[in-house]
C-alpha cells in the first residue's frame, strides 16, 4: 500500500469516528487546513518533475476531493443529527391554553339601529337627532296634541319638576316624532350642532333615539328606542309610504317579500293614519313570519297632519309627505328571537355575550345586514 493510500484510509477512518461537528472541523484543519497533511502534499507538487507531477498530481487531487467530500458528508450528517436532537429538546406542550382574550360585543338594539340606518341610507334618508328632554311644544302641541287633550294620556309621560319661574314642565320625549318638528321648522336654529336644524323641503330623514314612557311590565320598559322617518315633498302620497315600508320590512327581515297589511288607525300627528301588521304564526311558542293567520303590529305611520305642517310653517296645499315610527328594541327582538325586553337594559354579560354581535358584523349592503 502506498503512503497515499494509507493516509486516505487513516483519514476516512478518523472521519468515520468523529461524533461532533467540532471534531470534524478539527480533522478538516488537520488534513485540509493551511498546514494540513493533504495541503502539504499539494504544496509539494510544485517541487516535482513534470513526469512525477503527471503521475502523482491526480492521485493527490483525488485524495483531496474524496477526503473533502467525506468531511462535508460527515459534517452534514452530524448537523442534521444535532438539529434533530435540539428540536426534540425544544418540544413544548401546545395544549396549554392561549392567554385569555376578552371578547367584546355590540348590543343588539344598536346593531339593529345600524341595520336600519344602512337600509334607509340606501333609500336616500339622512340621520337627524333631537334631545331626550323636550318641551311641550315639540313633543305634543306642534304634533297636534292640544293641551289637556285625552290623546296625551295615552303616552304615560314622564315630567321634570316644573320650572319655578314659568311653571313649565319639560317632558322626557314620549316618541321620536319631535325630531320631525325640529327638522321641518326652517326658521328654527338648532340649539346644538348635533340637533337637527330646520330645513326647507324636500326632506327625507330618519331619527333614531331614546324614548321614554312611564310604563314597566313584561313588555314595556320606561326607556326604549324608536326610529322615526319623515319624507316631505310636493307629491309624496300614501302609496310611497306603503312602498317604502314594504321594501324596508322585507329587507330588514332579509326576505324576498313580507306579507304585510296596512290598516287604519289614529295618531294626532298623521292623517290618514295607519298601522302596519305582518303575517305571523305564533303557534308552538315560536314566531314565524309570513306564515299562519295571525297579524303582528310592527309600526305606526301616516301622512303628516296638515296642522303639523302648519305648525312648522309649511303650507299643506304645497307640501305633503309621510312619517312613521317603530320600536327598535322590539324589531331587534322579533328578528333575532330575543324573548324578553327587560334584559335588554340590564347589562348582564351572559346575555350580552349571547345576543350581542361581533364588532366586525357592521351592517352593509355588500355582505348582508347581519
Amino acid at each position: 500500500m502506498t503512503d497515499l493510500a494509507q493516509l486516505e484510509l487513516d483519514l476516512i477512518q478518523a472521519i468515520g469516528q468523529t461524533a461532533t461537528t467540532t471534531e470534524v472541523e478539527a480533522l478538516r484543519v488537520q488534513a485540509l487546513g493551511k498546514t494540513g497533511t493533504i495541503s502539504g502534499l499539494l504544496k509539494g507538487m510544485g517541487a516535482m518533475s513534470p513526469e512525477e507531477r503527471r503521475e502523482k498530481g491526480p492521485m493527490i487531487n483525488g485524495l483531496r476531493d474524496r477526503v473533502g467530500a467525506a468531511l462535508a458528508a460527515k459534517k452534514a450528517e452530524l448537523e442534521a443529527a444535532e438539529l434533530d436532537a435540539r428540536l426534540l429538546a425544544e418540544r413544548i406542550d401546545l395544549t396549554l391554553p392561549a392567554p385569555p382574550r376578552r371578547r367584546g360585543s355590540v348590543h343588539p338594539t344598536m346593531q339593529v339601529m345600524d341595520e336600519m340606518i344602512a337600509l334607509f341610507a340606501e333609500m336616500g334618508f339622512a340621520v337627524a337627532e333631537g334631545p331626550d328632554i323636550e318641551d311641550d311644544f315639540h313633543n305634543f302641541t306642534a304634533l297636534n296634541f292640544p293641551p289637556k287633550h285625552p290623546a296625551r294620556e295615552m303616552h304615560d309621560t314622564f315630567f321634570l319638576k316644573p320650572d319655578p319661574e314659568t311653571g313649565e314642565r319639560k317632558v322626557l320625549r314620549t316618541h321620536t316624532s319631535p325630531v320631525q318638528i325640529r327638522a321641518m321648522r326652517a326658521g328654527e336654529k338648532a340649539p346644538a350642532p348635533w340637533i337637527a336644524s330646520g330645513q326647507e323641503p324636500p326632506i327625507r330623514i330618519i331619527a333614531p333615539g331614546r324614548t321614554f314612557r312611564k310604563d314597566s311590565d313584561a313588555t314595556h320598559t320606561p326607556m326604549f328606542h324608536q326610529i322615526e322617518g319623515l319624507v316631505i315633498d310636493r307629491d309624496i302620497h300614501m302609496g310611497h309610504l306603503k312602498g317604502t315600508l314594504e321594501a324596508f320590512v322585507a329587507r330588514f327581515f332579509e326576505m324576498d317579500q313580507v306579507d304585510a297589511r296596512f290598516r287604519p288607525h289614529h295618531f294626532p300627528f298623521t292623517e290618514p293614519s295607519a298601522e302596519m301588521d305582518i303575517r305571523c304564526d305564533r303557534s308552538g311558542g315560536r314566531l314565524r313570519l309570513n306564515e299562519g293567520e295571525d297579524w303582528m303590529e310592527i309600526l305606526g305611520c301616516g301622512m303628516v297632519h296638515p296642522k303639523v305642517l302648519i305648525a312648522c310653517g309649511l303650507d299643506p296645499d304645497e307640501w305633503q309627505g309621510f312619517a312613521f315610527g317603530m320600536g327598535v328594541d322590539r324589531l331587534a327582538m322579533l328578528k333575532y328571537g330575543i324573548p324578553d325586553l327587560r334584559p335588554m337594559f340590564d347589562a348582564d354579560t351572559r346575555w350580552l355575550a349571547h345576543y350581542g354581535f361581533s364588532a366586525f358584523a357592521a351592517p352593509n349592503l355588500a355582505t348582508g345586514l347581519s
Partner: protein
Amino acid sequence: MKFTLDWLKDHLDTEADVETVARAMTMAGLEVEDVIDPVAKLAPFTVARIVSAEQHPNADRLRVCQVETVDGMKEIVCGAPNARAGLVTIYAPIGAYVPGLGVTLVEKPVRGVVSNGMLCSASELELSDESDGILDLPGDLTVGRPAAGVFGAQPVIDFEVTPNRPDWLGVAGIARDLAAAGLGTLKTPAIEAVPGAFPSPLSIRIERPDLCAVFAGRLIRGVRNGPSPQWLQDRLRAIGLRPISALVDITNLVSYDRARPLHVYDASKLVGGELVARGGQSARDSGEPEHLIALDGKTYAPGPNACVIADAAGERPIGLGGVMGGESTGCDEATVDVFVESAWFDPLATAQTGRDLGIISDAQYRFARGVDPASVVPGLELATALILELCGGEPSEMVVAGEAPASPASFAFDPARVERLTGLEVGDEQIADILTALGFQIARGDHWIVTPPSWRRDVEGPADLVEEVARIVGYDALPSTPLPETQRAPSGVLSPRQARMRTARRALAALGWREAVTWSFTSRKIAQLFGGGDERLVLDNPIASDLDCMRPSALPNLIQAAARNAARGHADAALFEIGPVYAGDRPQDQTTTITGVLAPHAPRAWTGAPVDPLFALKADLLALLEELGAPVASLQLVQGQNPGWWHPGRSARLQLGPKAVVAQFGALHPGVLKALDADGPMLAFEIVLDTLPQPRAAKSGSKARPAAELSALMPLTRDFAFVAPEDLVAGDLMRAVQGADKALISEARLFDLYRGKGVDDGMKSLAVEVVIQPREATLTEAEIEALSTKIVAAADKLGARLRS
C-alpha cells in the same frame, strides 16, 4: 268596547258571520282585539231526550240512560241525580270538547258500561258558575236542536276605540261605519218623541255652561223598577256589565247602544224643585270643600272645575256631572218616580275631573272623549220609551236648559285631494257615497262644501275626509310606490359625529368591551355623587324612587351593572355604553359620552401576570381615540385634577388644553364604589364625544393624504438609563428625550422602570430606547455621539442623570 253580534244586527242588516264582521272592522280602523265566540264553543252540543234511566249494575249513584239524540238512540252513563226518563237536556257526542271540564270525550267504559256520549250541566257548558245536575230544558224543544240557539249565545267582539271616535262607543256608530264599508244596510231604529202628559215639576238651571252646556230631563211617575227582562240582562251580561234594575239597565243599554250616557234620579229623594249644574264649592263659613258619596260608595271632594249636580236650591251635591251619580238620590226597587237626565258635559273638564278624582266610569269615559251633542234630546226620548215599555209610568214634558255646542263647521273639499294624498283612484261618485254613508252632508258645486255630522267633531279639514274615504275603500287598495330617486349626500348620510359613534362602538367591541344600554335615569343621590342631581333634572313622576333623576354620567349605571354581574358570579365585566348624559334640561345640555367600566378581575393565567389592567385600559383608550381620529400625539395627560368620583392618585385626564378635556380615565374612588354597593377596584374611562376635536380630514374636506415619507435609511436604536427623583413623572422625561432632536428621533420607548439595589432611596431608574431615523444620510459615529449628548442634556435639565 264590547258588543254582541245580535246587538249589531239590531242596527245592521247583514248576513256576515262574526269573523267577517271582525275583519271588516279591523280594516276600517276599528281594531278588533278579541272575538269570543260561544257559538263555536257550543257547536258540538245539541238537545236530547232521556227515554229511560236504569240503575247502573255496578254503581249506586250512576244511571244508564237510553237517550234520543241527533245521532239516534245512545246508551249514556250519567251520574246526575236528576237524570230521569222524559228529561230534555243537552247531549255531547264522543269527540266533543267540554269547555267547563277542559276535556275531550273519549269512548270508554264507566264501571263496565260503555257511555256513548255525555249529558251536560250548565257549568260544563260554561253557561253558569255552578249547577246541580244536568240541564233541565223545556219539554217542547226538538231533539237535535243546536245548543247555541237554545241558550241565545252570541259571539262577542272586543275592539279598541281610538280616542278620535267616541261615536264607536255605541253599537249604532259601529254599524254606521260597517254599512259604509259595504257589510250591510244600516237599520238603526228611529227614535220617536214621547209626548209629555203633564208639565215637569222639576226645573234645571245651568250655572257653569263651560262645564255643562245643555241639560235635558223629564220626570216619569208611577214606574215599577224591578229586575229588567231576560233579554236585557243577557245583553248586558254578554258584554261584562252587571244587571242592576230595569231603570239602571236602561241607562246602560242606551249608553252602549247610542253612545249616549244618561242618569236616573229617584225623584222622591230630590230636595226642592230645581237641579243645578255648577262647579264644586267650599263651605262659605269653614272653607271646607264639599263632599259627595257617589254610587260606588266612595266619598269625593269635587274641585271648582268639576261639574256638580246639586238640589236643595243648589246647596246639596247629588252627582258628579258626566262622571257618577250620588248615592243619596240613586234609584232602587222602591223607586216610583224617576227623573231622567240627558246632558252634555265638556270633554276636557270631564277628563280632568276623572283624573283629579281617580274615577273611571262608562259615562266619564264617553263624555271625556266627546258625546254627540245632538243626542241630548233623542237620547232622552229613547230612554223614556224604554222606561214606559219596561216599567210603565207616565212621562212629564221635557225640560231643557242650555244650548248644545255648535256643530262642526263646514269646509271646502276638493275630491281630487283623495288621489293626491293617497295615490288611490276613487271616482267622485264613490267619494260622495262613502261620505254620505258616514253622515256627512255634501253640497256639490265647483268646490264641494262638506258638513260633518254632529258626532264627528274630530273632522276638521280635507285630510280628515281623505282618511274617511281611504279607510272605507280599504288600505289594501293603496298602490305600493317606490320613493322617487333623490340626490344622495356624496359623503354618506351620517354626520362625522354620528359616524364616530359607530366607529367607537365597533372599535371597543373589537378591543374586548361589551356594549350595554342602560337607563337615562339614576337616583338623585347617586347623581349627586357624580356632579349631577340638579333640581331641574329631577323627575316629577318617576317610575321608581331610585330612578328619579336624569344621569350626569353613564358611570353609575355601568358600575352598578358590573356589580350586578359580580353578584351573579361574573366579576370580570368590561362594559361600555355610548349614550346621552344630561347637564341641564335644555337641548344643548345633553351631550354624548363614550363610557367604559372595567372590573379588573381577569382570570389567573399560567403565563404569569398580564399587563397592569389600568395600563391595559389606557392602551384601549388611546387605541380608541386613535380610531376616532383624535390628535393623540398632541394630548396632554394631566394627573390629579379629575373630579371627586375618581381615585385621586390613580386617575388622569387627556386634554388639548385646560378647557378642552377629551377624556378621563383611571380607577374610581373607593368611597363612591362603596356608596354604590360595588366591590372595588373598578377602572373606567369617559370620553365626551362632543368635545372631541374633528379629525383634520373632516375639517378640510379633503380626503387626500400627504405624500408618504418612506426612508431608505435604516433606523437605529440607542438605550439610555436615567436615574431620576421619584417626583419626576415618566411622561415629562419621555417628552424631553423625544424633544431633544425632533428631526432625528422618531420614537422613544420606556422599557424598564427599576427601584432598589443600586439606586438611591427616593430615586428611580428609567431605561429608554430611542429610535433614530436618519433623514438624508447614514449618521456618523460623531453625529450619533452628538445626538446622545443632546438627549442626556435634555434629561439632565429635569434632574434625570445618566446612570453610570
